[in-house]
Each structure stands twice: as structure tokens, then as C-alpha cells.
């Protein structure tokens, strides 16, 4: 609270300071836009005031009028023409050059921050600007990319406050769970960590990827600070970044001050969010379950297999009543300005969110300063950013072994006749339904107890900074050096209250504190040469070197049994019940690289790059590795007669190799902490084996594509086909334990990704008062695992196994994003092969369907394709944007439904009013027809045991729940990802003494989802941040995804 006040104060002071200086005012500026080629008026040109949402379009005579302060920069853009920025003056005349005719085409940021003309690129790069990102602002920049960039797949970790998201570009390249498949993030030239770190210990505090919410660290960026975001998808684009760029790179450039008056932007938003779907429990049958002899047990079970709920009973909407509306207050202020030789940008923001689960919250405060100063040929840049992110969270599911249950797990099974809100007794102990008949260690915690009594927080303070010096030695030669620093400390705190349903050892409370301290220092020296020769040839050469030094320090403290009630600290825990561990990792890397490019007129471009890395993580003899890339583009329309139909055409191709080093310490085998038995001290190996002969992982990839513009640029098409193969996979998979270890580090296997990306842009309407821009993107990727060491049936990440399902990658051409599980067995043909739609086998010893427990592949979580349709409609000062996000195919496991069937809360279990179930198939032992109806009132002898029908019906559903296929759907969806409406009030301002510009925006996020998925929300990842094949497509007892509505105001002074 105190922090909020401070921020408000800072903002107020800034406002006052700036208001004094405000003299300039917005005036209507009008002008004409002409084509540079033939001086004909250009209609349909978008004229926008730089840095605002305010825009207009020229009429058929090329005329426009727009409100802007004098001296403001106007941006003139038209598909097929180079965007121009021109200072606003009265009655201005602007000449636009068509892209194919100009030396200066569209410029994009590429690897190492080098700006290049788009047409020179031999690979695909997608760039998004601030305006596009802000249309559906999300505090996590990663989320703002959803549906907007072909080839990019975003998965939100869930609806919790502070929950992160994962991003993969063109599929994953590494199978092992300790290896991330997410792209490298580079902010203002400095690599920016985007880990999703789990600090705790699943055994002692329940902290694992699936049990609570985690943020990905890119969330520490204030999205309002972003000027442009460039996605380098393939290895050729990213190769210069070296070892960590095999999964693509996202380059973010933050805002800078512009020459001119100091301006202040204030943006305030308030948002309301709510769950967009909830499980719908049955309310017909009450708590209880039936023993095999039909005796009803209602004394100690949370199952809902009991008798019908009497008509006069109160039924509580436990699930529906649990969630609250989440509110976000989002305030941003920035101040920027500059002179001829210098500029600055200063921003502060606070994002304060309460989650839909009571007691959860996410509060982020950021500060940034960017400055630039020129001294003759020398330009110095400095960026510093500081952020504080605090998350209040809850355990949603149980950790390994002894951590009790989580709130969602408990909520989704609580019988509907128990008032879940009644969770605490007057004496402060937990109100337990079965207090008289169930020991505390066998009980489960009420979710309200979990969210009110326990306390889980995660706090991250982060400082990033960089200093960059560029010296222009000559027109054609410059030299630059950069020092970058990224440091954060995450402090997690987990307190489990005394009186929680845990094993007796922990019933008097448990506490753990975890620290993760991350430090990254990098230095870069680079020099660039540009030269034009024979008039038609242009060449450039870049040489550079870089060093990176990364260190993480992890500390875990935990203990149990508070000996002084009321004071919950390590100081009230006996020494023998307190434990701590340390883990330090260090990684260093030195790289030397170069790029050489040559172009002929504006027709042919060729670029080659090479980089050599020396990594500390590899064995000394293998630590140096080199990788090249080559790319080219050919603008063939330059050689054709001018055409109004095909106004621009380019084809491109590239090939690249990228090496990837190992994780720190992967070369060695280490030992466990000692055990003490009597007077002896025993020391033995850890269950992970190192590998002293590792070699780097190598990715070879190629892509081809083309860019085409039709009808003078009214329609644009960008097409890419790519293929990548990552060999010598470094991993530490689970392998045969006869090798002596559970995990063994090795180089083996290949990951192959192929796919295609299409982006189509169009401007169906372009009139003075009405315009419509549409971008359609479409992509698919097929990720497959190549040959692996013989006999390994699958790989799975430990963090991604739920119910009967494991996320897994399947060797020898199988799915990279596979899913393995337990299906019912079907009858076999004469060759012993299962008949695809054959009858089920029924096990006569149980009377139910027989399961294939060999964990066969049951699904592929990779979509057939994904796409997005992004529309912007503008009518006068009103702008309407909406983004449709489309997905076709890809399997999702509905683990929540699995869970609710198993405990009798699912509506599916109401089949036949629970009076009967029928098992039909063939007897697995005799092959005879099997057709048996189990009726509640009857009893059945299976083997030698007699079972009551009520018990058989319960068992039927347990058997049903065990069949993974009952919960797997190939999901299609169309989501109205965002809908935003902006109105610019600037024209209506009578006096512009204080405000130069005002606009207001209303945004709806995830308003509608049309899908064939029956569960809550198909966009799921049950264990955020898992490496390898991850956990996308697994829906298991998570906090529901949310729909939100945001109202915001932007003010400029």
C-alpha cells in the first residue's frame, strides 16, 4: 500500500513539473500527399501522429487534416511505400516514395540490433510496434504476441494472478526437460533472462511447476516501454546470437526520447476479470461411497458416490461461489524529450492485480531510464530498468509425497452438500467435516483454509542496465562497445499453517524460504564497415566479440513444527527441524563473430555470417565450436516491367547452423550429501550421471520464402517454408536404470521441425473517414523426434504427468509434443495387431475393460495449424480493433474432468441415474462376447468376490476414468482474443493548455471462445515453464482462464 502511495506521489510531482512547461498546443494540420514517382495525389495513405492512436487517411485527392501539436512527428504509411516521418507544419506537402523505387525500404531490427532493409533479408522476421502491442495490452509482453505472429505459439500458464506464459517459435528443438525451447529475449542489445524458475522443493513445500503459479521473467518488462518488438524466427536470423539462439530471438527495443519539447504520457487503466469457464458439478448425489458388499460409507470420504441428496437439502454452489472478480489498476507515466545531441526517456509504472482466487495478487512496479548523448562522432546510450514484482499465490494441487492437497484440487472435489465456506472453528482450528472419524493426516484441507491460513509469496527485484558507446570513425566505419547487466533476486516464502491436513510430522506448521539470485554480465565489442563500389555494389562487414558470464545462487531453507504458537518464523523452530541447502551454477561463454554482406543495386542481396563460441559448460576439448549461415534475397520485380498487379516481389532463402552448449556441470557426476549411520559417514553418487565427452548440440536449418505486394500494395503476402534439424541433442533423459543412474547426460537424437508461415495483409477500405486494415496469419509446424538410442520408447518431462497422462516426445519419427497414457485395449487381428475400432477387451477377473498399461502414445498436442485475423477499423476518431485467434487440431487432455469423474462430481456419472452401467466387449481370456449390465440393486460375483451393484457402478467409473482416451479431444477453437475500441478526444479539446491529447480505450480480452472442447479453457499448460515437450495441452486442476474488460485513458501533456 505504501508503495502505491509513493508511486502516485511521484506521478503527481512529474505532472506538476511538466504542466508548467506546457505551451504548445494541438492544432489542425492539413496537407497533401503525392507520389514521388509521378507527383499524382495518393489516396488511402495513413497519416498518424507518432506515438498516439490518432490517425487519418488521405482522400482521393491526397488531402488530409489531423490534429497535432506543431513540431509533432507525423507518420505517413502506405503499403508498398516507405513510411516517412515528417515534422508537422501548416499546409504541408509530403511526397511518398514507393518502396521499390527507393534506397530506403522498410527497416527492421535484426540480430545484434543491426537495422536492415526488409527486402535485404534472406529470412523471415516479424516486427510489431508499440501501437500493435498496446491494442490488447497485457502485462506480460509474451501474451501480447498471441495470434499476431505466424509461427509463434503462446501458451498461458493459467488464470492465476501473476501466472506466466510460454512462447515457442517454430516448435521446440530440445527434448530434455532441463532444456528450454523458448526464444532468447534481447532488450536494447542485452540478453534478458526469461526463466520460469521453481525455487522450492516439491516434497517439503509443494513447490513444483504444476502446483502453483509462476511468472516468466519477461513479465518484469513494462510493456508500455516497448517501442518495437522483432521476432527472429529461424536460425539464420538468429545465428549471430550464438549458443542460446537456436530457438529464435525476440528483440525488444525500448522507447527513446525524440528531439523537441518534453512530453509526458500518462496512461491509466482499470480492468475487471472473471473466470471464463468453470467445472459444472452434479448436484444429484451426495457424499459417500459403497464398499464391495454395498455398505455405504459416509463417515470419512469426500467422494460423491453416496445416496441421492434429499429434496429439502441445501446445495451449495461451492465452485461457483469460490472465485471473485479480479481487478487490475494499471498506471503508467513516462516523460521524454531531447535536444539535437541528446534525448531521454523516463518511465514509471505500477500494475496492481487481485486474482480471481481470493487472496491472490500480482503487483508489479517498474522504472526505466533511457538516455542518449552525442559528443561529435561518439554516441553514448544508457538504459537502466528496475522492477519489483510481488505475487501472492496459493498451492493449487498437491506436491510430491507429503505436501497435502491444493486449493483447486480440494475445491473440485468438495461435496455439494457441505458448505465449503465453513472452514474454521471459533477456536481457530480447521472446521473438518469428518473431524470425529478421520484423522487429520488422512483428511484434506478445505480450500478456504488453504487460501486464508497458508501464505505463499514470491517477490522478485530486478535491475537491468546497459551502457553502449558508438564511435563513428568514418562515414563507412564505426566501432561500438556495450556492457550489459541483468540481475534479479527471487524470494519465495511458503508457510503452511499449523492444523493443516498433513502427515503428523508437519501438522504443527511448516515454513520454507527460497532465494534465487541471478546475475548476468555481458560485454560486446563490434565494428561495422560499409562501402559502396562500382556504384551498383554495396558491401558491409561486421566483426565482433562478446563475453557472457552467468551465475545463479539458490538457497533453500525449510523447517517444521513451530514451538511458539502465533509466531511463525525459523526462530520458533527447533534446530533439529531446520534444514538448508545451497546450489550455485556458473556459466561463461566467449564468442567471436562476423557478418559479411554484399548487394547489387536493389536486386540481389547476399549475407554470410560466422560465429565461434567457447563455452565453459562443455569439456575442454569440445568447448570451441563454429557455425556459419548464409542467406540471400532476390527482388525479381526490379527486373520486370512495372506492373500494378504485382507491384513488388522478392524471393529469399537461407541456410544456417547454430550450436548449443550444455547446462552447467553436465560433464561431471556428483555425489549426495552424506548419510550418517552410527559412527560411519556414507557418501554415494547422485542419480544423475554427467558426461565428460559431451559435444555441442547442432541445429541445421534452411528456409525459403517470398514477399509479394499486389495492387500497388493494397494486398501483401509473405510466405515461408522452413526445415530444421537439431542433432546431438544434449539431454539428461530418464533412461534404463541398469545404467546405474536415473538420468544420464548424453548426446543423442534429433529433433526435426518443418512448417510453413503465411502472412497476408490487406487494406480493403481506405477512405478519409473510414479505413479497414486486416492482417491474416497462418502457420503450422510438425515437430518430430528422429532416431534415438535404440529401445527408448519415449521421453517425458517429470513435471508434466497428470492423471493417466504424461507429456512425452516419441523417438523414431514420433511426435515431439506427444502424449502417452492408458487406453482401453481393443481386440486384435490375427497378426496380433489391435483393430482400430475393434471391440474392447473385458477383463473377466474385474468385470471391466482392460487397460493397456504399457503407456502407448495416445495423442499429439501439436495443432494442425494456428492462425490469427487481426482487424483495425477506423471511423473518424473511433478505432475498433479485434483479433481472432484460430487453432485447428492438437490434443488436449481434460484432467479436471478425469478428476471429477474419479470422485463422483462429474455430471457424466449421472448416466442412467446411477442405477446401471453396461460393459460390452469381448472376454480378454476366452474371446467370447461379453455383455453385462451392472444394476444398483443386484450383486455380482467376479472371481471369488461378491460385489454389490452400487460398488460395481462406482468401479465402472473408476475404470472409465482410467482410460485416457475418454478425456482427450482434438481441439479446434476460434477465440475473440481481444476487442478494443479507442476514441481520440483531442479534436474536442477546447483549451489545450494542459492536455495535448486525450484518448480513451475499452478493451475486452478473451470475450468469446468457440470450441469443441468440453472443459474449462483449451488453452492450457498444467505445469508452467517445463522444458522439453512441456505441458501444453494438459488441463489439470488449474485456476480457470479469465475474461477481462479494461477501460483506459491516455493523456499526453
Amino acid at each position, binding site marked *: 500500500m505504501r508503495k502505491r502511495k509513493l508511486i502516485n506521489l511521484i506521478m503527481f510531482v512529474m505532472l506538476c513539473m511538466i504542466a508548467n512547461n506546457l505551451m504548445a498546443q494541438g492544432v489542425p494540420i492539413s496537407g497533401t500527399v503525392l507520389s514521388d514517382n509521378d507527383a499524382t495525389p495518393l489516396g488511402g495513405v495513413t497519416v498518424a501522429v507518432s506515438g498516439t492512436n490518432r490517425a487519418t487517411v488521405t482522400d482521393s485527392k491526397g488531402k488530409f487534416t489531423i490534429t497535432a501539436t506543431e513540431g509533432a512527428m507525423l507518420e505517413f504509411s502506405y503499403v508498398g511505400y516507405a513510411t516517412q516521418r515528417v515534422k508537422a507544419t501548416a499546409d504541408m506537402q509530403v511526397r511518398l516514395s514507393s518502396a521499390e523505387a527507393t534506397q530506403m525500404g522498410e527497416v527492421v531490427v535484426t540480430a545484434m540490433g543491426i537495422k536492415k532493409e526488409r527486402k535485404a533479408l534472406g529470412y523471415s522476421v516479424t516486427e510489431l510496434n508499440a501501437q500493435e502491442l498496446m491494442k490488447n495490452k497485457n502485462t506480460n509482453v509474451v501474451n501480447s504476441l498471441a495470434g499476431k505472429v505466424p509461427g509463434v505459439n503462446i501458451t498461458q500458464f493459467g488464470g492465476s494472478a501473476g501466472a506466466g506464459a510460454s512462447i515457442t517459435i517454430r516448435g521446440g528443438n530440445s527434448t530434455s526437460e532441463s532444456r528450454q525451447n523458448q526464444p532468447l529475449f534481447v532488450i536494447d542489445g542485452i540478453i534478458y533472462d526469461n526463466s520460469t524458475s521453481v525455487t522450492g522443493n516439491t516434497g517439503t513445500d509443494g513447490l513444483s511447476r504444476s502446483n502453483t503459479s509462476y511468472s516468466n521473467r519477461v513479465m518484469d518488462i513494462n510493456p508500455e516501454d516497448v517501442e518495437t518488438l522483432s521476432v527472429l524466427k529461424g536460425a539464420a536470423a538468429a545465428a549471430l546470437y550464438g549458443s542460446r539462439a537456436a530457438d529464435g530471438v525476440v528483440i525488444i527495443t525500448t522507447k527513446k526520447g525524440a528531439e523537441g519539447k518534453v512530453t509526458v504520457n500518462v496512461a491509466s487503466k482499470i480492468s475487471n476479470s472473471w473466470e471464463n469457464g468453470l467445472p459444472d458439478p452434479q448436484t444429484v448425489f451426495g457424499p459417500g461411497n459403497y464398499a464391495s458388499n454395498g455398505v455405504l460409507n459416509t463417515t470419512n470420504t469426500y467422494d460423491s458416490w453416496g445416496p441421492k441428496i434429499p429434496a429439502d437439502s441445501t446445495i451449495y454452489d461451492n465452485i461457483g461461489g469460490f472465485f471473485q472478480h479480479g481487478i487490475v489498476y494499471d498506471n503508467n507515466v513516462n516523460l521524454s524529450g531531447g535536444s539535437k545531441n541528446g534525448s531521454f526517456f523516463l518511465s514509471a509504472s505500477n500494475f496492481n492485480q487481485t486474482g480471481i482466487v481470493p487472496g491472490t495478487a500480482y503487483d508489479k512496479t517498474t522504472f526505466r531510464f533511457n538516455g542518449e548523448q552525442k559528443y561529435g562522432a561518439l554516441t553514448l546510450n544508457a538504459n537502466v530498468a528496475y522492477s519489483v514484482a510481488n505475487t501472492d499465490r496459493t498451492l493449487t494441487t498437491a506436491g510430491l509425497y507429503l505436501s497435502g492437497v491444493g486449493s483447486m484440487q480440494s475445491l473440485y472435489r468438495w461435496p455439494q452438500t457441505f458448505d465449503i465456506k465453513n472452514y474454521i472453528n471459533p477456536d481457530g482450528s480447521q472446521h473438518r467435516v469428518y473431524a470425529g472419524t478421520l484423522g487429520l493426516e488422512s483428511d484434506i484441507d478445505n480450500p478456504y483454509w488453504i487460501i486464508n491460513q497458508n501464505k505463499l509469496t514470491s517477490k522478485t527485484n530486478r535491475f537491468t542496465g546497459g551502457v553502449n558507446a558508438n564511435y563513428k570513425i568514418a562515414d563507412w566505419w564505426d566501432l561500438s562497445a556495450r556492457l550489459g547487466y541483468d540481475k534479479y533476486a527471487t524470494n519465495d516464502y511458503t508457510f503452511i499453517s499449523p492444523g493443516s491436513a498433513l502427515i503428523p510430522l508437519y501438522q504443527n506448521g511448516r515454513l520454507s524460504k527460497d532465494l534465487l539470485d541471478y546475475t548476468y554480465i555481458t560485454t560486446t565489442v563490434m565494428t561495422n564497415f560499409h562501402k559502396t563500389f562500382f556504384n551498383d555494389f554495396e558491401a558491409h562487414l561486421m566483426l565482433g566479440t562478446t563475453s557472457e558470464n552467468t551465475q545463479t545462487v539458490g538457497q533453500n531453507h525449510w523447517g517444521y513444527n513451530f514451538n511458539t504458537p502465533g509466531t511463525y518464523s525459523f526462530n520458533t523452530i527447533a534446530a533439529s527441524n531446520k534444514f538448508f541447502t545451497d546450489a550455485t551454477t556458473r556459466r561463461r561463454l*566467449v564468442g567471436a563473430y562476423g557478418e559479411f554482406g554484399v548487394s547489387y543495386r536493389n536486386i540481389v542481396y547476399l549475407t554470410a555470417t560466422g560465429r565461434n563460441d567457447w*563455452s565453459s559448460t562443455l569439456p575442454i576439448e569440445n568447448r570451441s565450436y563454429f557455425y556459419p549461415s548464409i542467406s540471400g534475397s532476390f527482388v525479381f520485380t526490379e527486373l520486370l516491367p512495372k506492373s500494378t498487379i504485382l507491384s513488388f516481389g522478392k524471393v529469399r532463402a537461407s541456410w544456417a547452423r547454430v550450436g548449443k552448449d550444455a547446462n552447467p556441470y553436465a560433464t561431471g557426476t556428483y555425489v549426495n550429501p552424506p548419510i550418517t549411520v552410527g559412527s560411519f559417514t556414507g557418501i554415494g553418487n547422485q542419480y544423475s550421471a554427467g558426461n565428460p565427452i559431451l559435444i555441442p548440440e547442432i541445429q541445421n536449418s534452411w528456409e525459403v520464402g517470398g514477399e509479394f505486394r499486389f495492387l500497388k500494395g493494397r494486398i501483401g503476402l509473405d510466405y515461408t517454408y522452413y526445415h530444421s534439424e537439431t542433432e546431438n541433442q544434449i539431454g539428461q533423459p530418464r533412461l*534404463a536404470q541398469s545404467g546405474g543412474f536415473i538420468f544420464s547426460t548424453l548426446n543423442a537424437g534429433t529433433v526435426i521441425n518443418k512448417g510453413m508461415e503465411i502472412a497476408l495483409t490487406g487494406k480493403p477500405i481506405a477512405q478519409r473517414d473510414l479505413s479497414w486494415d486486416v492482417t491474416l496469419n497462418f502457420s503450422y509446424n510438425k515437430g518430430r523426434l528422429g532416431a534415438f538410442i535404440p529401445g527408448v520408447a519415449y521421453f517425458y518431462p517429470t513435471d508434466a504427468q497428470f492423471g493417466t497422462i504424461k507429456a512425452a516426445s516419441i523417438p523414431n519419427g514420433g511426435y515431439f509434443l506427444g502424449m502417452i497414457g492408458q487406453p482401453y485395449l481393443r481386440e486384435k487381428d490375427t497378426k496380433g495387431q489391435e483393430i482400430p475400432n475393434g471391440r474392447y477387451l473385458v477383463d473377466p477377473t474385474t468385470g471391466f475393460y482392460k487397460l493397456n498399461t504399457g503407456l502407448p502414445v495416445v495423442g499429439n498436442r501439436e495443432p494442425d495449424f494456428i492462425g490469427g485475423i487481426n482487424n483495425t477499423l477506423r471511423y473518424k476518431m473511433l478505432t475498433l480493433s479485434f483479433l481472432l485467434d484460430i487453432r485447428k487440431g492438437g490434443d488436449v487432455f481434460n484432467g479436471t474432468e478425469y478428476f471429477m469423474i474419479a470422485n463422483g462430481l462429474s455430471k457424466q456419472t449421472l448416466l442412467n441415474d446411477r442405477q446401471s452401467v453396461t460393459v460390452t466387449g469381448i472376454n480378454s481370456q476366452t474371446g467370447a462376447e461379453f455383455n453385462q449390465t451392472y444394476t444398483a440393486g443386484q450383486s455380482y460375483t467376479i472371481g471369488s468376490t461378491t460385489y454389490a451393484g452400487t460398488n460395481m457402478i462406482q468401479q465402472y467409473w473408476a475404470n472409465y476414468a482410467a482410460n485416457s482416451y475418454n478425456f482427450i479431444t482434438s481441439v479446434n477453437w476460434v477465440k475473440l482474443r481481444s476487442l478494443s475500441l479507442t476514441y481520440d478526444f483531442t479534436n474536442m479539446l477546447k483549451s489545450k493548455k494542459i492536455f495535448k491529447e486525450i484518448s480513451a480505450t475499452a478493451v475486452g480480452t478473451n470475450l468469446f471462445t468457440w470450441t469443441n472442447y468440453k472443459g474449462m479453457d483449451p488453452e492450457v499448460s498444467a505445469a508452467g515453464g517445463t522444458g522439453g515437450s512441456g505441458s501444453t495441452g494438459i488441463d489439470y486442476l488449474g485456476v480457470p482462464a479469465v475474461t477481462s474488460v479494461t477501460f483506459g485513458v491516455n493523456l499526453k501533456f
Partner: protein
Amino acid sequence: MKQSKYIILACTLIVSLVSCKKYLDVNTDTDNPSNQSVLIQNRLPWIEHFYQYTAGVTNYRTSCQTGVYYTNSANPNTFSTTWACTNANSTTSYQTWFVEVSSNLVDMYKAAEKQGAYHYMAASDVFHALGYMEMLDLYGEMPYTEAGTGNPSPSPDDGKTIFNGCMAKLNEAIDLFSRTQDPVLPTLASGDLWSNGNVDKWIKLCWGLKARYMLKLSKKADLYNADSILYCLSKGPQSNADNTAGPGFNNSTQLDYLIGDPVVTNGNWDYVAYGATNRISQYYYDLLTNMRGSGVTDPRMTKIVPASMANVKLDGSGKVMSYTWNRSKGVDSYGPSTRLLKGTPTSIALQSYAAANTSVTYAIANATDRTNFINDQIASGRTYTVDGNNVKVTYPAGSIFINSTNYLYAGDTAYVNLQSGSLATTKVAQPATDVNWYPAPASGAAAGAFNAGVIGSTGSFQVRPVSDQEILTYHEMCFIKAEVYLRKGDAGSAYTAYTDGIKAHLNMMQAKLTQWKASNYNNPDMWPMDQAAIDAYLVSPAVAPGASITMADIMLQKYLAMGCSIENWNDMRRFNFSAGNVGGFGVVYPGYKRGPLFTGQAQLTGGSPTDVRYWMRRWALPPTYEIQYNSEHTLALNHHAADPNIWCMPIWWDCATDDEYNGYLKN
């Protein structure tokens, strides 16, 4: 300004380029020692402890197979009761041996070899034999020559290769132990938790193991060699003083890194008596109360079969004032199995403690059952009321009862579970010398039963946290000798060895019980047996009289003495269980048979007892950790490794010839 700029640039360049090699040398974990640096005297206690752990889970699960224990835990219940063996039973022994022990053996051997520390090399060899022979006994084939070295995809070896390899390692161990180690090197005593560096005892262990292993070959006409076994026995343990046992302690709460079990306790306890799922089976119980149909109760019975308190009266302060011992019955899975047939195979219910008077209402629709149930209440002296089908019973404060409204389970207090408490696993502040189990109260504080002093189980001799874990004992040697002599037709010598074995076991137990009593363990089942009862037993009909001794007499006394041990299953396989078709010895294990709850047709495909595939003859390999992860190699050697009925395929030493064995693998 200009100058400073160049200085910054120059510094940056220097940082980037200079002393690159040193800059990169940071790939060593500063928090965890590398496996290269571990001292051999620290490896050995680790290996000894974790081998005990592997042996513990193996002893437990095979003892469920042989009828020593009944369990209501779903997976091992398929060993004790239904025989529908589930693959989930296969994992722990394999994982704990290979992951916790095997790679350490390789590292210890190499480190010892480098220094010339013969005794540590020898110890590595012994554990190699102990562990891999145990794996062979369970799984038949698995990686051996390529195992334990970090090779992630090792090829398996057949049983014969593993057997011969283990024997060779024992021969090498005997040689190495016989050498004198340079006195500057760490002495064996500095790392030997088991035998305090007593090399002589280690050598006897090696010979004893050779005898045990050579006995496995009894089905093989060409390899079984009685005189060789007798020679080995002559060099093996000669008295209880030569026994090798792993010690069990209750003096620490430290937990292991992999499974999270205490590191100081007896490995058998970790599986048999850590939790409340296990009970004495009827088969074992009968041997202790009716050996040879004698009706004689064995003096060891009350030390092995647990008891709980019954008829408890509490005093004003809520402490036990008076009680009787409720000695457990056995749970029957092979005979009529009356109780289990009423519920499911796993339905034996857990005991709870009634901290206050507790009423339970049972709905009993069946009139006969209701009458019987009421009669039981009358016999127990409990208060009850009847209302239609409902019988409401009041359990007085201090009672141990079954907290369920299902009347079928109400009598399950007769089956006392085997749980024992330890410092690391109980919440209530039980002193180290109190390893009893106190049942959780149905309501109220967890410490209720403990504070009142109401014991739920007194535990069992071999499976308390503080029990010795028998690795190789003199009494086993005696029984091997008895068997070998009887096979030679020398009944007289067999008889001597047989009685020596019984006496040795009684003496070993008595010594431990005496020691426990002296250490003030607070439970009479941990105190010495009555010497008069021992003397009476030895001359009773429970012990075979003189030369009329049968193989069944020997093997059943051996079974009784070995108890929680894989050797019983090894022996039973050699005699084809109760088929009675081996060597004219008749039925050696009478009463051991498929019970009425048998549902293992898919796993055990033999149609009659004389069909080898009628019985549990091996374990499937771990379904995930070996079959899934190493399927190609595994199936190449044994085409049927993944078949459901792999459970009844004989392993190498269980076959008369290599042809028979290879036939199973390939056909």
C-alpha cells in the same frame, strides 16, 4: 572525456579476450563434491546401507509371494493373495539396486584399485555378487556386464552369465581379502558398518555365499555338486559369531535422498513395518503354532507374531490401567480364506483408537450375519443396541477398533498389523526405546493412543527399525548342509545339521532379545524367550525325530527361521513349490497353493501344479525403467520380457538345462 571512452573500450576488449581459458574454467560444482573425490571409506557405508535397503524391499515382496506376509497394499497384494502379479511390484528393488548402489561399486573398486586397497576392492566384489545375484533371482536377465557404468542403453546378459560372474567375483574377493593391505591405506574397519573390518568374517561370508549360490543349481544334474557345497560350508560361518548382519538403529531422523526413508533403520522394516498395510499370513502363523501338525506353539511365535492391547481400561488420567494382549491371527489367502472372501482381496481394515467412548452403527441386512455379529458383541462384552437392521455398538474409551460402518470389517482387530514406530516416522514423541505402533485416533490428538499407553502393535522380530538385517547366518548354513546331506542320502548328518540350524536360530534370537531387554526396550515381545519353552520345543513333535527327517522338515524349519528373506522363494522354486515332483522329496511346502481369491490366470498360465508355469517364478522387469527405456535390447535377449505371463517363466538356475532355459527365452 575522449580518453575515458578509450579506456572503457580497452577494458572491455581485455575482459573479452584475455585469459579466455582460465575465464572458462568454471564448470565445476562448488556446492557438491564430484564422484572422483569420494574416499573409499565413505563409499563402503553408503553401499552397505543402500544394499540393505534394496534387500529390504526384495525380502518383503518375495515374502509376500512365499506366504510369510499378507498385505492389503494393492500391488504386493497381487503377490500375497490374488497372484495376479502387477508390474508395479518390479520397480523398487531394481531402482534401489542400480541407482543407489551399482554405480558406487564401480567407483569404489576403481578408487581402491588405484591405491591398492585390496580389502575395499574385495568388498566391492562381495556387494557385486550380493546385488547382481539378487537381481538374477528376481528378474532372470538384465544388463550386467554393461551395467552400472553410466551406459544409458546397456545390453542385458542371460542368467548363466550373471551367475558365473557373481561366482567369479566371490573368488576374487576371497583372494583379495587374503592379501595384506598396505597399512598406510584406509583400513577396512574405517568404512565397514557391517563387520567392523573383520576380514576373517568377510572371507567366511564369501564362502557362505558361494554355498548359498551353488545350492541354487540343485535342478541341474551337471552343475549341482554336493561336495563342493560342503567344502564351501566348511570354510563359511561356523557359529552365530560368524553371522553377517546389517545393523538397524533408531537414533536419527535423517532421510535418504531417493525414497525419503530413514538412513539408519533396518531395510526390512522400511517395507514390512514402516506403514500399516502388512500382517502375518496364515501360512507363516501355522508354522509357528502347528509345525508338523504338532499343535505345539513355537517359543519364537510371540516374538514374530505381533500383538495389540485389548480390553483396555483407562484410569482417571486417561492412562492404561489394565489390558490383555490380543495376539494376532494370520490372514488366510491359501486356505478357505473366509474373511477375505467376504470383502475384496485387500479389504483387511486398519485399526483406529477410540480416545473416547465411540459408537458405530452397522446396517446389516443379512439376518444370519446380524445374529452372528450380535453374538460377537456379546462375547466381547460390548454395549450394543439393535434397531431393525441397524446394530449400534459402543467401543469404550481406550479401545482399538475398526473405524468403519461396514460390519464385515469390525472383527479385523484380530489381524494386528506389523507396523513399528521410529523417531523419523512418528509424530508423537516416542522415546528411541519405544518402537511400538500406536494407532491414530478416530478423533482427537494424534498422540492419544501413545499418551494413554495403548499399544497397537508390538512388532515382529526381524522387521523392527532396530532389528539386525540378516545377510548371511550360521543357521542358514546349517539348513543348507541338512538339505545337501539329505540329497546325498545321509539322513543322519542331515538331521544333525537340521537341529543345529534350529538351535542356532533360537540362540541368535535369544541373544538379540537379551540385548534389547538390556537396552530397556519397553515391550515384552522384545524380551527373551522362556528357556524352558525353548528346551521343551526342541524335544517336541514340532521338531522331527531322528533319522525319519524329511525334506519338508528341513525346508519348513529353514523357512520359519529365514522369515523375511528372498531365500525362501529361491528354495520354493527349487522344489517347485508344493507340486511335490522334485527328487522324490514329496510335497515340501504343504498348504502353499493358489487360494480362492486367485485371479492370476493371465500371469501364471500353467494349468496344474506340476506345470512349471503354474507358479510365480520371476518378476517382470520394471515396466518403465527397463522395458520402456531399453526395450530393443531387452526383447532381443528375451522375446517374452514384456509378455503378461513373464511372471511364470523360470530363470536360468530354475531350469534343469541351458536348452530348457534358452527355449523359454527364444520360443
